[in-house]
């Protein structure tokens, strides 16, 4: 199957509708599309002012591309898109978009989760929560 992989590390927000329009033009034989969006959430015990995301852009992009290649082969996906933002983001701003598309839903679901798990701790992004009372670098739980 011809895999189509789109990866971006960017400051700007992404537009889900336009991404879906592009995807539909390229995936006529796929019946499943799984969309995951990670967004900025407020803190439990403080008021978040903003989330600062730092990235090692070139390396992040190559690491994401590599995991997308793996996922495309493992789950025989028709289309994978990963766009991850950096910079200063506010509550509810989008952080990451992962779209996976395959003939049937199971492969698209599994691949989406696999890619997100990888992004959490293997791609060079770092998040700093700046709140009213505190500011701290996020650590993986």
């Amino acid at each position, binding site marked *: 199957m011809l895999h189509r992989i789109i990866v971006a590390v960017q400051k700007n927000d992404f537009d889900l509708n336009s991404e879906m329009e592009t995807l539909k033009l390229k995936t006529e034989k796929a019946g499943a599309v799984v969309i995951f969006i*990670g967004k900025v959430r407020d803190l439990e015990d403080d008021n978040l002012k903003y989330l600062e995301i*730092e990235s*090692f852009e*070139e*390396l*992040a992009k*190559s*690491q994401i591309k590599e995991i997308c290649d793996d996922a495309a082969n493992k789950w025989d996906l028709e289309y994978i898109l990963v766009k*991850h933002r950096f910079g200063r983001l506010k509550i509810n701003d989008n*952080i*990451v978009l992962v779209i996976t598309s395959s003939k049937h839903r199971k492969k698209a679901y599994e691949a989406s989760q696999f890619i*997100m798990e990888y*992004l*959490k*701790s*293997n*791609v*060079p*992004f*770092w*998040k*700093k929560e700046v709140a009213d009372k505190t500011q701290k*670098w*996020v*650590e*993986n739980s």
Partner: protein
Amino acid sequence: MGKVKLKYFSRIRETIGKTSELVEIKSTNIQDLIEELQAMGEQYSVLKGRDFAVYSAVDQNIVTDVKTSIEGATEIAFFPPMTGG
């Protein structure tokens, strides 16, 4: 060895106080480089990873073994555990 561009990210960047620098180094692996840098100033002791794990990337390849050779490298990056997604 020669001149190498060193890059620092996140907590390491904050502690060292710069995003990157061009440094003349003698070391031929990551472990020796960290020792060499520490001799330049106490702020570089953050690279020893006492408070959190320190990762490095040599010419944009993440390495896990501090004995990894850096001979011929042009860029070495240091960073804490990654928290993407």
